[in-house]
């Protein structure tokens, strides 16, 4: 908790640090890191109910396109809200149809949804199709640090939502749903409602992150906004950092994006090979993620035969 606040404090004062000629580059990287981290935190919100979603990239893309299309008319903040709203509304549709599915079946359904959405955006006329969609910068580009603070705001909002859910009664229902759905129901947990609320929060934040991304990238293409890579990143970060926590995805997102950027600068060819190796080693040797390293818990349960 304290570490979370320290990190958020650093995020706020980061632009004031004397970074010299590296400033523009680091602020740029930081914005992408904040967006990826916010998306990872949003994915974790649903993962806490035991549902593994591969649609986080789709909600991100829907938010990006909805915000990108409406920014010119509505202005920055309302357009971002539209993006979050479109993503949340589509999660209700998807959720009503699929949240009764479990495990791998839900994951496949969300993957199919992502493909459908990407194809629709690719074929629809008003989205610019395969040519892409130019997007106006945040606040008309008039405020140099506007994009930075927008990304920081989405990150902070995601962190606060994650903390709030983690300390609310919903956290008990989520964990119970994840660890034993039938038992949870017999205890009175309305598991479908719990999953739907988690899905709604998760997709709204993903849509918001997508909108901020659109205004930072200034150009959207279906291949980029809806790429499977984004959905994978959204789940790799929490796994690397520590699932079902706030600190885990926060720390994991900032570190992984920094690591990836650094590797790309150092090793032009094949930096992803090294990045992938590091991830594999991390998952092998840190089964509970970064957070597990400094929050050791009692050793895992010995499997005893039960009567």
């Amino acid at each position, binding site marked *: 908790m304290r570490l979370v606040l320290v990190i958020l404090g650093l995020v706020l004062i980061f632009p004031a640090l004397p970074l010299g000629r590296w400033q523009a580059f680091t602020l740029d990287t930081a914005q992408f890191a904040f967006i990826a981290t916010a998306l990872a935190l949003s994915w974790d919100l649903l993962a806490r109910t035991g549902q593994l979603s591969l649609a986080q990239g789709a909600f991100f893309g829907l938010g990006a396109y909805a915000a990108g299309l409406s920014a010119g008319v509505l202005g920055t903040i309302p357009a971002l809200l539209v993006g979050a709203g479109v993503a949340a509304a589509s999660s209700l549709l998807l959720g009503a149809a699929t949240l009764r599915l479990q495990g791998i079946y839900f994951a496949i359904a969300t993957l199919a949804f992502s493909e459908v959405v990407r194809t629709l955006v690719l074929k629809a006329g008003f989205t610019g199709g395969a040519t892409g969609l130019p997007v106006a910068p945040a606040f008309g580009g008039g405020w140099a640090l506007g994009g930075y603070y927008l990304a920081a705001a989405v990150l902070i909002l995601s962190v606060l939502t994650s903390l709030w859910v983690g300390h609310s*009664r919903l956290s*008990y*229902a989520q*964990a*119970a749903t994840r*660890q*034993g759905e*039938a*038992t*949870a*129901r*017999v*205890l*009175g*947990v*309305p*598991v479908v409602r719990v999953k739907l609320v988690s899905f709604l929060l998760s997709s709204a934040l993903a849509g918001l992150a997508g909108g901020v991304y659109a205004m930072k990238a200034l150009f959207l293409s279906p291949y980029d906004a809806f790429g499977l890579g984004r959905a994978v990143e959204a789940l790799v970060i929490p796994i690397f950092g520590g699932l079902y926590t706030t600190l885990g995805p926060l720390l994991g997102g900032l570190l992984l994006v920094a690591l990836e950027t650094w590797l790309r600068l150092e090793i032009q060819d094949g930096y992803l090979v090294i990045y992938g190796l590091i991830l594999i080693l991390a998952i092998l040797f840190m089964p509970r993620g970064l957070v597990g390293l400094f929050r050791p*818990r*009692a050793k*895992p*349960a*010995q499997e*005893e035969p*039960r*009567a």
Partner: protein
Amino acid sequence: MLRLRGVSKTFGGLRAVQGVSLEVQPGEILAVIGPNGAGKSTLLNLISGLLSADSGRIEFLGQDLTHAAPEVRAWRGLGRAFQIVQPFPEMSVRENLMVGALYGTPGTSVQAARKVVERVLELSGLAGKAQHPAGELSLLEDKRLELARALATQPKLLLLDEVMAGLRPAEAQDAVRLVRSIRDSGVSVLFIEHLMPVVRALADRVVVLDYGQVIAEGRYAEVAENPKVREAYLGRGA
């Protein structure tokens, strides 16, 4: 308070429960016994809503719950402890109980739930293990947690599925005392049990199932003398 009328459930060709009618009175401890495969656990699943009945009617406190979801039945006051313990393994004992306390009775505030949990921890003898991960308990503690979590939902009727199985006689005696004190606090109990001493010690009334049907009903002494019951337990022609 609980009334079943002609409740049936078929799995494929197997008629697991056939036309079962029974009633639990307020303040009563009712035992459901029967040989293995008689349909006892299926019956509990039908009452708690994990299975839905093919036909018949289930009423609780005057309301028709035949097709209600498990969580709705929990909210109305049905609590259930499983035969095969189902702790939420990544939570502590206290957190396990919090799930039941928070969600078992609609409108329970977090503060009220905490109070319920502390009371149940004391009652069930788990106070010393409150912070312990639920995935790492002994069998006895597992059984206590299973019962305690059902109690934390503040049920009006508690459904117990062989909660004594695997316990040593002294431990079973403790559990018998615990179930009695639960009843004395105003909770009715419907339990399934294989251990006849436990049934004799606890049950006000006994219902005997065989091949999914009620073959006898009454006080323990009456039922134990019933020839049909003896036949069911000892085998045909014994």
